[in-house]
């Protein structure tokens, strides 16, 4: 009985290790993905969003597949959140969301702002509509 308990504890900690390593790998892969040129369609959309300064629902629907869920989650969280908040919302690993959010920042959809020890990702249009008028 005791033995099997130990083994299951060992297995859990092993799984945890594997999980952490997988997160690391995903993070590295994401960094690689960032260097791969975007498809023409998404580049045009990005340019459009940046030119007009509008991130509306049509923009949300036309961002590259792997980033869409992250951007929509950020919008639903009110347009401002940490990678941890987004991960809680999407159910994906924090490292993954962090990589995607950084990609969105590189593409110009979101901005990064440090507040104390936390980094917030912000859809600027979501916070400045009335102030800008």
């Amino acid at each position, binding site marked *: 009985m005791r033995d099997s308990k130990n083994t299951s504890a060992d297995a859990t900690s092993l799984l945890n290790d594997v999980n952490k390593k997988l997160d690391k790998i995903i993070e590295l892969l994401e960094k690689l993905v960032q260097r791969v040129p975007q498809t023409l369609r998404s580049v045009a959309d990005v340019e459009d969003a940046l030119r*007009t300064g*509008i*991130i*509306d*629902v*049509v923009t*949300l*629907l036309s961002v590259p597949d792997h980033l*869409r*869920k992250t951007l*929509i989650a950020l*919008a*639903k969280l*009110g*347009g401002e959140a940490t990678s941890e908040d987004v991960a809680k919302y999407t159910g994906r690993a924090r490292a993954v969301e962090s990589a995607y959010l950084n990609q969105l920042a590189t593409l110009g959809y979101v901005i990064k702002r440090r507040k104390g020890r936390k980094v917030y990702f912000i859809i600027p*249009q*979501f916070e400045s*509509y*009335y102030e800008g008028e």
Partner: protein
Amino acid sequence: MKAVAIHSQRGGSGKSVLAANLAYALASLNYKVVLLDCDLRAPTQYYIFNEPKVKHFINDYLNGEAEDDDVIVRIDDGVKGKLLVVFANPSIDAIKEALVKDRRWEMNALKKLIGLIKKFRHDSVDIVLIDTPPGPQYSALNAIVASDATILVTLPDKIEVRGAEVLLREIYSLVEIKVMLIVNKVPSKSHEEALRLGESVVRKLGGAELLEVIPYYPEVVLYNGDKMMVRDLPEHPYSKLIFEIARKIWTYL
């Protein structure tokens, strides 16, 4: 709490009548329900609820001219739970105004809609039903993105089913939203026959779960705007099916 958009590819599939009756049925089953009319181009809920006194419409809230609390109308006609409705302004001026909104306004409307739904979550509402315009129009897309799930209403004919297919493939799958299908206005003599037709529709539409099949009932047309089916004719088969949906929708959400 769950926010559910009620949508279809083509007009006239029965979304607005369904939304109102389902909201009323859920409230009678003791849930706290919000019904949001997000069809600013063809507002309908105002007429379904017999032109109530409304101080502020959702238009005013989206325009930044009214607070969230000011647009909520409590409907008090004998429901056990709570039924709160946010109406869209049916005046021709408001409709004209909605027609010429630009992308910047729509972007802000999405943000405000998300804020409103957040408020309802905070107020411990059980379910928010959102009536939308048909097809991939701005207010519909905003509602879908802001929601947790969509009820896709379709007729059983070929053109409608094609339209539903397009929505599933081009819109819903992009937001990874849960889709529940209602096949409405099915021409059939029995519910069994209707079910068979409905099931053949679902087989054609991958990625959606069948919530209910509703036959075509002339009374629904005849009484529209005059009587609310679930309230005034609770024994009618249409009303019974709506109550059925109100009971089982929770297992799908």
